[in-house]
């Protein structure tokens, strides 16, 4: 038991468990942010955002989320480096895409691209919001207005789109792979997991991409059109 999580399979279990948790986070994140596309979306999104930013249970889970992300990143990078060292002399002719998909072999690279995007993303929204709550006005910032402002810059929009595309490829392998690692990808559930994983990997990043793009092209109502009722 002492090596349970540190053996080669154990390390992969850590990746799988944190990976599935992060998929769970993406569901919530995607759901709440996509409220902006609904009628009366600014109010719906602002209320949901307020709940997520102030509810003590959610704020506690947030600590777990950060721990999970950091564990996933550190363990992932370490595994990538360790696995690479297991073949010190490479092949002259590599098999390329004959026997495996490029994105399944590029999880470390895709993950690193997502990490770079994440640093920018967190500094755009999460950091100023928490700063304002704890060190500034004591309230949250207007996140809708913030999005509207941030997504005026075409370079930022492009980085977000590329970040989400990296996420899509990462998920396309990571989703089913996590279930395989956790021993749950049984023949009975394999088609369901694979199908669900593929749909998830395409739909969720597309919804995320739609946000910066919609703000940039001005398809969404301006933040100034919303007057809080209280």
């Amino acid at each position, binding site marked *: *038991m*002492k*090596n*349970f999580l540190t*053996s*080669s*399979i*154990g*390390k*992969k*279990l850590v990746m799988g468990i944190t990976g599935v948790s992060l998929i769970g986070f993406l569901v919530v994140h995607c759901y709440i942010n996509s409220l902006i596309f609904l009628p009366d979306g600014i109010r719906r999104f602002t209320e949901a955002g307020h709940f997520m930013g102030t509810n003590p249970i959610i704020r506690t889970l947030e600590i777990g989320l950060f721990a999970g992300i950091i564990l996933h990143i550190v363990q992932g990078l370490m*595994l990538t480096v*360790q*696995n*690479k*060292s*297991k*073949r*010190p*002399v*490479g*092949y*002259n*002719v*590599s*098999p*390329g895409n*004959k*026997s*495996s*998909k490029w994105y*399944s*072999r590029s*999880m470390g690279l895709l993950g690193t691209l997502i990490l770079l995007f994440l640093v920018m993303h967190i500094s755009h929204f999460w950091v100023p919001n928490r700063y304002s709550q704890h060190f500034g006005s004591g309230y949250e910032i207007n996140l809708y207005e913030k999005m509207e402002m941030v997504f005026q810059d075409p370079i930022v929009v492009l980085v977000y789109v590329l970040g989400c595309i990296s996420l899509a490829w990462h998920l396309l*392998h990571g989703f*089913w*792979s996590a279930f*395989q*690692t*956790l*021993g*749950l*990808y*049984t*023949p009975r559930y*394999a088609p369901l997991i694979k199908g669900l994983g593929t749909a998830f990997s395409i739909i969720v990043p597309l919804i995320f991409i739609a946000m910066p793009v919609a703000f940039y092209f001005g398809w969404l109502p301006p933040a100034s059109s919303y007057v809080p009722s209280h």
Partner: protein
Amino acid sequence: MEHYNMNLTLKVWRQQNAQSQGAFETYSVKEISSEMSFLEMFDVLNEQLIHEGKEPITFDHDCREGICGACSMHINGQAHGPWHETTTCQLHMRAFKDGDTIVVEPWRAAAFPVIKDLMVDRTAFDRIIQAGGYISVNTGNAQDANNLPIAKDKADESFAAATCIGCGACVASCKNASASLFLSAKVAHLALLPQGDAERKTRVLNMVEQMDKEGFGACTNTGACEAECPKGISIMNIRRLNAEYIRAGLSGSIAK
């Protein structure tokens, strides 16, 4: 299939021993029959080298029937060459055409050091088996057939896993040089049968520990092993290996 002869250029990895620096040597072979196996083509080349007073190329082979797992060779970027579910001895020269250049390399993995030329040391697999790939429970005298009821699907799955010949193509093909497919086949083969059930927990923990000690990488589920396995061992066995590992770990069993 129509018979034809071909002239080929071969780029073969030559390495004196584990310590020395190897390099590719280029050879040409003429009038190779399309009906030869790949190893027979190498026999022709080696005869040629002996006639020229040069040292023949060292490569592993034994049964030449596709069942022993001795032959290796990474041929044009693929373990055992371009054909699906085929060992090198069963790869025939009709897979190639006149004028082709074929690059032949040894298995590349830290856990499989080169002994000489195309021959690598695969005893790491033996040590993994020694760590638990057997049963030590007393099964008594041979019983009547069907005394132990085993469901057909379990028997089939176990047999499919047992067809692993331990050639190491999975390690050679995996970008992480992981032995997961090999190990999973051995674990699944025994875990599915009542004879193997008694020791399934310590078996999986011991074998995983040995695999890690040997210096194989971790599985990242790329599926390259399954695609290159000459026996078509399914990565569903790796799913089972993971499940066995979790079950053993959570039950508090320890590797001995």
